[in-house]
């Protein structure tokens, strides 16, 4: 049963990613990426990273991709206006095959190492654990990221204003 779910989600993820890189229209690519992200979120849930599952949908598929889709829709480029990338089909296929083979080889090596596949505690991925870590060991990065986001927001407002 779990295998069926895994193959379905992985299939959606891979097909979504493939569609994204092969579509001419940028909007189709963006929507395919949303499907791929949602399937990835499902895979995270299968690995018991439940908090990351929700964050993936909430932030990635729900906020970042919406922003990208807004940009694409407002720019409204038709596929004819976008230039073709000068990489031939055969060359692209060879690069793709080489990348996949390299990654699979890396994964195989990793699985052979004893500490390549760590066992996690039963409470791994819980929101309580992540929250406790964020406020104890990772307190400084947490605060610094908040300041960084504030700087980004203020910068956007300043850049987007027509006159100060």
């Amino acid at each position, binding site marked *: 049963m779990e295998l069926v779910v895994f193959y379905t989600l992985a299939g959606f993820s891979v097909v979504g990613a493939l569609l994204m890189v092969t579509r001419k229209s940028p909007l189709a690519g963006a929507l395919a990426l949303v499907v791929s992200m949602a399937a990835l979120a499902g895979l995270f849930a299968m690995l018991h990273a439940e908090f990351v599952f929700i964050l993936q949908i909430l932030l990635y598929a729900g906020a970042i991709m919406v922003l990208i*889709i807004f940009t694409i829709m407002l720019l409204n480029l038709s596929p004819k206006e976008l230039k073709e990338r000068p990489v031939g089909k055969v060359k692209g296929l060879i690069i793709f095959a080489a990348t996949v083979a390299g990654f699979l080889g890396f994964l195989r090596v990793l699985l052979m190492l004893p500490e390549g596949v760590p066992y996690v505690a039963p409470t791994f991925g819980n929101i309580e654990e992540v929250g406790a870590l964020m406020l104890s060991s990772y307190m400084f990065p947490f605060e610094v990221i908040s300041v960084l986001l504030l700087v980004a927001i203020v910068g956007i407002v300043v850049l987007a204003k027509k006159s100060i």
Partner: protein
Amino acid sequence: MTIHLIGLGKAVFIWGLALMCVPILIWFERKGAAFIQDRVGPNRASILGVRLAGFIHNFSDVVKLLTKEMMVPAHANKWYFMLAPFVGITVILFAFAVIPWADNFRFGGWDIPMQVTSLNGGILFILAITSLEVYGVVLAGWSSNNKFSLLGGLRSSAQMVSYEVPLALSLIGVFMVFGTVQLGEIVTGQGNLLFGFLPKWGIFVQPLGFILFLTSVFAETNRNPFDLPEGESEIVAGYHTEYSGIRFALFYVGEYVAIVLGAAMVTTLFFGGWQIPYLPTARLISNAPMVLKVMLIFGAIVSLAAGAALVVYDKRLRGTWPKGDLRNQEGRILATVAFLMFAAHLVAIAYFWSIDMPDWGRATVALLAQIGAFVVKLLFFCWLFIWVRWTLPRFRYDQLMRLGWKTLLPLAFVNILITGLVLLLVDRAGS
């Protein structure tokens, strides 16, 4: 295998509840609007003469929408045009997976939680789903090749994205008070008593959070007073202008399902969900025969009163329609149904009066009482949505955005601050 079947049954139940509330809501909307505006409302559609005060209009609407021509505008992007309504309705139904509708069903060795799934992220799942809803709106607005649709779609999505922030922040106060993100535990935590006599409902411990949350939910579902994106007199119908037939029906149903979801969230977080005040589950189970009798007697009284009212209605109605018209018989038919239900209640009371209730009977009675409490609160909040819609005028778009970012957001932060301070002082006073 049994686990999967039970989960499937729960999913079917909650989806059925959500979707069955939609025709009731549509009826509330029209009759409620008419009531507030001092007119009668639709009351013409009838089946074999029975009009049910306008409820049959739901069926006639469905038939009309199914048989209407489904047009796709010229030069519209067909694929996205057809995709948008499906995204709109499907995504919103997923959010009902974490709403609890009763306490755990304990009987024998079984302990079945009464929500489809208890995710570790709890209510964050619903926030994630509301952020996915934007896709339906944006795709519909953009693919219609219509300036009004595009404007409505962009405004609506900007509004939904803006109001997600106060929505999430107003919930942080609730998380701080109840100490958990999971909805089942939040509802269980609302069973305690505050100061000894007040049930620890969310609204008593988080009044400002309730107001902020309610306002943000109105804005998230594009309901008045935040419905400029689909305001009829302003930009035709916003992002669903070009949709007709079953596609429009899907958008319409999706909007009402979002209302039911908003009402369910308000009930669960701030009004105790399925909790009946002063009657925790243990007391319900130990007093189950009494609870059952009370419910049956209440049902009997309601049926009797309905029957009497319908007899009066029949006297007033008889002869007002032309001879042979079936609508003359409506009062008599409905009165017969009401008296039959009264008789059924009496039979049930006689049967259950002195029966020795087994364990599963007690658990079932407690379950039904809690589901009843949940549904009553849900319908009350759905009615609140409709009430506010026909009472308040619409916000202008810049006023809307200003309210979201400049008023609700700082208030949400103040709420978090005050909640934190109060919790700190209470904790220090207690220990």
